[in-house]
């Protein structure tokens, strides 16, 4: 556990003049799942989107402090953000499959990485669909439109799409917020499996979810990291009063 994947130190982040993160320190360890929790607007999604620099897409944002992937500063000038994103995949709050077939959705990322042979594609698509626990449901209709899938299936397709390109880290931004309990349970189960192969960072509103799926939990409030510890400790014996109030449902 001594070689962290991400090392974040004194990270500050601004949207225009508005500061969204204040001196955040977090360490993400390999093959574990780390949950970011906190009330809306606390900066947890902002931090998540710093990890693959998706925030670059928003105009007039500014970042200060240190955020490193295996010691390489992410915002250093020599970093190629495209390569970074190939290595740090992401699943979004609202499932966003492309309006193409199921097959082409997963093939998209692979083709971009230069996998073009039909057999390779088929193999890797099957593998990633299996890992995303979707294969049995869609194996007979790979050429159907992804838009015809249910919400939970779409989200698992997005997970399959993200892991098909074999990233090291998988970022998940409230992946279950738009799903029903059954679909949510499936994805939570999936996260437990994916952990063996990927490092997972998950943002969630749902504290039970954080307690169920994560090994470490970071609690944010108003852009500050309030507490960061092993999940069981955060939920049973938090050091901070605010954390306790939040995880026991007294505010948020």
């Amino acid at each position, binding site marked *: 556990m001594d070689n962290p994947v991400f090392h974040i130190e004194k990270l500050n982040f601004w949207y225009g003049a508005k500061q969204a993160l204040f001196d955040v320190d977090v360490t993400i360890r390999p093959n574990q799942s780390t949950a970011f929790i906190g009330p809306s607007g606390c900066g947890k999604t902002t931090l998540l989107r710093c990890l693959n620099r998706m925030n670059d897409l928003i105009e007039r944002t500014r970042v200060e402090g240190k955020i490193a992937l295996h010691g390489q500063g992410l915002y250093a000038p020599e970093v190629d953000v495209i390569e970074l994103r190939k290595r740090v995949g992401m699943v979004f709050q609202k499932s966003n499959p492309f309006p193409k077939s199921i097959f082409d959705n997963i093939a998209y990322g692979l083709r971009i990485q230069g996998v073009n042979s039909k057999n390779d594609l088929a193999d890797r698509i099957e593998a990633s669909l299996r890992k995303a626990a979707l294969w049995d449901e869609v194996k007979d209709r790979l050429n159907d439109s992804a838009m015809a899938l249910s919400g939970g299936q779409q989200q698992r397709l997005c997970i399959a799409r993200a892991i098909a*390109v074999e990233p090291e880290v998988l970022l998940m931004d409230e992946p279950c917020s738009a799903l029903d309990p059954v679909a949510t349970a499936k994805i939570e189960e999936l996260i437990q499996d994916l952990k063996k192969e990927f490092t997972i960072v998950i943002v969630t509103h749902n504290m039970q979810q954080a307690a169920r799926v994560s090994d470490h939990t970071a609690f944010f409030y108003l852009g500050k990291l309030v507490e960061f510890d092993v999940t069981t400790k955060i939920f049973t014996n938090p050091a901070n009063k605010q954390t306790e109030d939040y995880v026991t449902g007294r505010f948020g």
Partner: protein
Amino acid sequence: MTEKQPVETRRGDAGVAPASLSRTDLGAAIIRKRSRPGEWLAERGIFAVSLSSIVMIFLIFAFVGREALPVILGQTSNARTQKPLTPDEATKLPADKLAKYIGVSVSELKGYDAETLKTLVELKAEELAQVSNTDSRINTTSWQKMFQPHRWLGYDKPEYIWQPTSEIPKYNCIPLFIGSLKATLVALLFSVPLGVAAAIYVSQLASPKVREIVKPTIELLSGIPSVVLGFFALIVLATILQTIFHYSSRLNALVGGIALGLAVIPVIFTIAEDALTSVPKSYSQAALALGAAPWQVAWQVVLPAALPGVFAACILGFGRAMGETMIVLMASGNASIVSASILDSCRTITATIAAELAEVVFGGAHYRILFLLGTLLFAVTFVTNLVGEMIVHRLKARLEGA
């Protein structure tokens, strides 16, 4: 393809090598900058192409202005200014110049004896002496003659005259300006009340069903080519209006202006309606909550808030009316007379260019003055568009900020 290699083999490497070392090294190495010349080139290309609108505006100004430049700089002259020569001076001239002066060919000149030549030179001097006090010595392409009245021979007072094809071409632009303004004024008097009232009705009072009918109808109207509106004005509208008002010239500023108004209505309606609907709902809801009737809200709350937008609609409508060509060319009669009556026919700037450019000598004074008119027209619409857009932009920013 080679740059893809690390990604696919990474996992294998990580498994074989001691985890601590390889991961750290790879962390730095894999996300290092790649050069993507294709991407870089494409981005520059996209940017370059996106500048084409700016380039086009510049080229329009440059190339329309270029043809007009000699007139603008006062370098053109169509004055016939030959100095009369005495027979002594004439005999000293080289043969070709003398021939040109008298107006004969060089071979003819050689056939003349000295006596005939002397008579011819004297006759020419007499002729020039007569000409010297006529209009032909005037450079009619000067700024002064293009914009100030002049008392031509046979007229009893200074007048503004556009007669580019008469023996002494007269290029005074004022009748054309008056023609354009007259047609535009009629068009605006017709289209502003209708367009703005309809915009108020559709945006504030009408039921969604009415809106569903009116908006596409107005889109339809804006899709009618102006040559078709001109045709309709010429064949149908002119007859109807003449039957009603019993005026003498069938095609006039009234007919042209109303047809022009039909083309301007969609412009005014669309922009005014847009401004009215962008007034925040909270304004009108507050007024409605205080017990105001819908018409009062529209008149006393929404319209004042959107007034700059309505004003901008009128400005842009003005620009459109000034620049419209086919309608006025077909329906306004095209007589370049200075008259305040809208029942007289009028000749607009645009119609003048359209009607005359096909028949002028390329590069001649008339040609250049038509381009000058085009340049002026471009400048006028450029300014009206700029002002109109600025007003709309400011209004939107203010309403969205509120």
